[in-house]
């Protein structure tokens, strides 16, 4: 069997081209279905490409949603579970914008704390996580650790972002 076409754009088209909507590219492979579940509303037409080859990542996932752009809340969730992702806005089959998902300094009420004894799992109280940066004197200038690590502001435990379950909205 012949090897599939390997240019990035061609691979994306292998999934399915969409006329209008959002393409989430460069998703860590293990997170592809989580991203799809996050972004899939009842009316949405969603296309999923899993374990596609990527020159940058080795393997990656792609999720395309027709006819809508993602909300700020969805972007925040996306940053938590797929911080390497790029978000492309598609209009009339053309890429209008293509940007890395913005990773905020903190995540408010996006995910459940994975520490079962954390107070946020026992009280009606929003969760909050801050991004953990690498050990450095100038902490604010230090690079974000990949894979993304976060710390619960309340119980002070550190987690790989992928360990956290997103909260239902």
């Amino acid at each position, binding site marked *: 069997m012949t090897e599939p076409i390997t240019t990035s754009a061609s691979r994306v088209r292998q999934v399915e081209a969409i006329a209008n909507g959002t393409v989430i590219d460069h998703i860590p492979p293990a997170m592809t279905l989580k991203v799809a579940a996050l972004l899939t509303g009842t009316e949405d037409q969603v296309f999923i490409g899993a374990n596609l080859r990527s020159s940058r990542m080795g393997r990656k996932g792609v999720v395309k949603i027709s006819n809508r752009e993602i909300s700020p809340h969805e972007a925040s969730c996306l940053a938590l579970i797929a911080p390497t992702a790029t978000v492309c806005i598609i209009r009339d089959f053309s890429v209008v914008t293509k940007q890395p998902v913005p990773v905020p300094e903190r995540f408010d009420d996006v995910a459940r704390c994975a520490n079962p004894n954390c*107070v946020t799992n026992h*009280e009606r109280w929003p969760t909050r996580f801050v991004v953990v940066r690498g050990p450095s004197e100038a902490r604010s200038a230090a690079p974000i650790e990949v894979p993304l690590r976060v710390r*619960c502001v309340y119980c002070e435990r550190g987690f790989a972002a992928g360990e956290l379950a997103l909260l239902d909205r």
Partner: protein
Amino acid sequence: MRFAGRQVLSIADFTRDEIVHVLTVASQVEQRGRGALFSGKLMATLFFEPSTRTRLSFEAAMLHQGGQVMGFSDAASTSTKKGESLADTIRMVEQYVDVIVMRHPRDGAARLAAEVSRVPVINGGDGANQHPSQTFLDLYTIAKLFPALLTGDRQLTVAFAGDLKYGRTVHSLVSALCHFKVKILLTAPAGLELPQQYLDECAAAGLPVEIASGLPEAIAASDVLYMTRLQEERFPDPVEFDHIKASYRVNAAMLRSAKPELRILHPLPRINEIATDVDFTPHAHYFPQAGNGIPVRQALVGLVLGVL
């Protein structure tokens, strides 16, 4: 350096200078003795789970300086039992008092409380997370014994032995020691080692960390030996627990190889990990350590109340 109105939730919230300031003020308060620093001030002690030392120590700290105390030591007797949220309990209590001291079984409960309280909240222990007043008193005890901790004249060796995985006092003290010139020596049963997060903190701070082969090496090499309690529930096999318990028990005979200045600390309660014959050696220092809770807690309360 502003402390009035400040929350005392986690040792990680304090800089080196702030920690040193608290220790300095504690020393001044101790020298001053009993007085009326807290006259007209009321403390709430909200102990949602049992405590002996911490609650009594905070209450004594307040009463010795003319302050007053109200509170509870059993959540079963409060509206929490009826389903009241922690936030609502705090919003009610803060109407009555000048400062809240709280112990709670859930990690992060003190920070939640502080977010809704207008008056300072002092964390008296939140689950397995933090117990900052204990860390301040541990540091105060070490600094009193070894002024080099603060002056940096020489590198102290502080050994930690026992359950280093679950002991919040160990985690907080290791984090705090990252501000000072010390070497850390660790000895723990397999599966109860210090979590990587704290080893990373030490590495980031440039603190040397060594793993001791066992308790005898830790005793011979250290200035301070910080013992912790092994909890049976951490060991699925009772036979294994008995075996390990025996190898993490200090007795007077073992201390013959210690430096004369070695002092043994323990956050208490001690169960079997320090034999009672150690109490009669000059190395035992866990009861004076508990006593240091009074000036340290007076310093914290006085600073957050703005009277020191």
